């Protein structure tokens, strides 16, 4: 089980570092071709080859690690009534930064 981290008063950089840990753990045996490491600009679908079910798992892993359940991820994942086609790490950081207060 991944180490849990208190999410209160986290800076954007701390949120980012937590996401890096989650994503590196999650994708470690996915045989991905990217070599740049996880960056703020990293795109989940284009670069990390995420499918919709992977986004679901990521949401659950984030909530576990940050010990914060019920975050309104629909604000991040749905725009104009449709699921978004791409998400960047910086968008997730920004979303979490707004909702972890």
């Amino acid at each position: 089980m991944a180490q849990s981290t208190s999410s209160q008063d986290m800076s954007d950089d701390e949120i980012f570092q937590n996401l890096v840990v989650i994503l590196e753990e999650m994708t470690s045996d996915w045989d991905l071709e990217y070599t740049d490491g996880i960056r703020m600009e990293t795109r989940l679908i284009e670069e990390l080859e995420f499918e919709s079910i992977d986004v679901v798992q990521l949401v659950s892993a984030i909530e576990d690690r940050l010990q914060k359940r019920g975050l309104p991820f629909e604000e991040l994942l749905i725009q104009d009534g449709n699921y978004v086609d791409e998400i960047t790490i910086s968008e997730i950081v920004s979303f979490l930064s707004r909702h972890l207060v």
Partner: protein
Amino acid sequence: MQQVIMIGLDGATFTVLDRLMADGVMPFLRQFSTNGVRSKLFSTTNPLTPPAWISMLTGRNPGNHGVMDFLTPMQKEDGIFVKFNDSHDIQCETVWSIAGRQGKRVAGLNFYGMNPAFPVNGFLVSGFTPWKHLKRATWPPEFYQTVKSIADIKKLGFDLEQEKKCLQDNQMSPDEAEVWLKSHMAREQNWFAVLENIMQTDPCDLTAVVFDGVDKIQHLFWPYLLPELLPDGDDSQQRKIQNLCLDYYRQLDKIIAKIVGMAGDDCQVLITSDHGFGTTTEIFYLNKWLHDQGYLTWSNPDVVDQVGQLTENRISSHMGLIDFKKTTAFAWTPSSNGVFIRQAKSPADPGIQPEEYEAFREKIRQDLLAFRDPDTGEQVVTQVLTREEACPGKFSKMAPDLMLILRDHGMVSILNSDRSLIKRSEAAGCHHPEGILIAGGAGICSGKKIGSTNITDVTPMLLYGLGLPVPHDLEGEVPSALYEPDFLKKHPVVKDGMTNPVAGGIPVRQEDELTPKEEEAMLDQLRLLGYV
């Protein structure tokens, strides 16, 4: 007492198994059944994998354990957001935890809803999980490397795109069907390899595994298992698929034989299914019916199902079907088989005002019961239960406001159609409430058939088999007719204590606050497991 083995066969029904046993396809199961006890095992009101397996593992109905479906619809002002259910959503203690905190070692493989895996006194590898996420679905975490070394994790995993085809009839070519059937044979072999490793290297008191290919094959190839449903003719492709289906069951029989052989004579073995299977010959378009009654507005009324589907191919497309701002009642998924009523949170909100809710719901219920097959005049929706009736308990509000039982036990379609009721071009398989229980081994009667048991009885049976007391708050019972009288006399069923408020390791929801006593009980459990 002794060890207990549970072999779950997702969706297994005596309708098929009796034929296969009689025809020599499953000789071991025939022998095991003849030497043991068999019973119909009645599923949850909605006989569906998530509520049913969780009821089997908790001894509680969905209104208490809180898992109603694969997805939970979360109603928002301008629509619906999908939430996938996982282990966090199980609101009752599982048998893994009840047995584990009393010193019994447990192994649970390929059960729905165990992801993310949580601490147990033994091993847990969740089912219904894509291979890319099996690491998080495995407890203890280091066991994942063992799993990888003995099995092909890509074969253990769940392929969502393939599985969706189970709800979409006639979408697989014969060549695809062959590949698909063989992949399920390989899956079961890989799960067996993991189970075998545990039984040989670190045996547990309670060892349980689910083989889910049974359900999938019955969804896609039901007529091949009941040949009288196939069209007449000598079709070599038809025979090929039929033989591949039978090969799957032959292999499954050999796997069951190996597991029971490894278990030994002093072990109790339960073979169970989460629900049964039956034949569906029609499709009821529930949202079309709701539209015709004035409850639902389509986003695009021109999009009409032409091929007899129950749902869209993509889950995200569900949201686009309906104009939620102009809708008061809707069906969310085929599997939930129910009507959700949009309730207003304030007088200005769209939806039904609280004071109108009961009368509104009753009106839909009566109208559904009054709906008739236009060709025969027969009733189509045979029962409509309120959520309090279908899923009594603290979490009944998570169930559909109304739950439907159709005359053929089929699932509803949520798509638009020209008519509310159509005949299928070919008969298909659908879930049915009558599952199976076949039990054998130490203390269990021989050659006996008992009337019926309930899915919530399984956890009490497992605990009893382990020599543990049955907590008072379990809804199921130990069916005494299953056991030899002398065995029962020597090992009387003991009811004692209560379950803990959550399963081991699953965080308590934020809105829940533990009492000091509950906190202490949870700490005791974590201490016992070595985490505190």
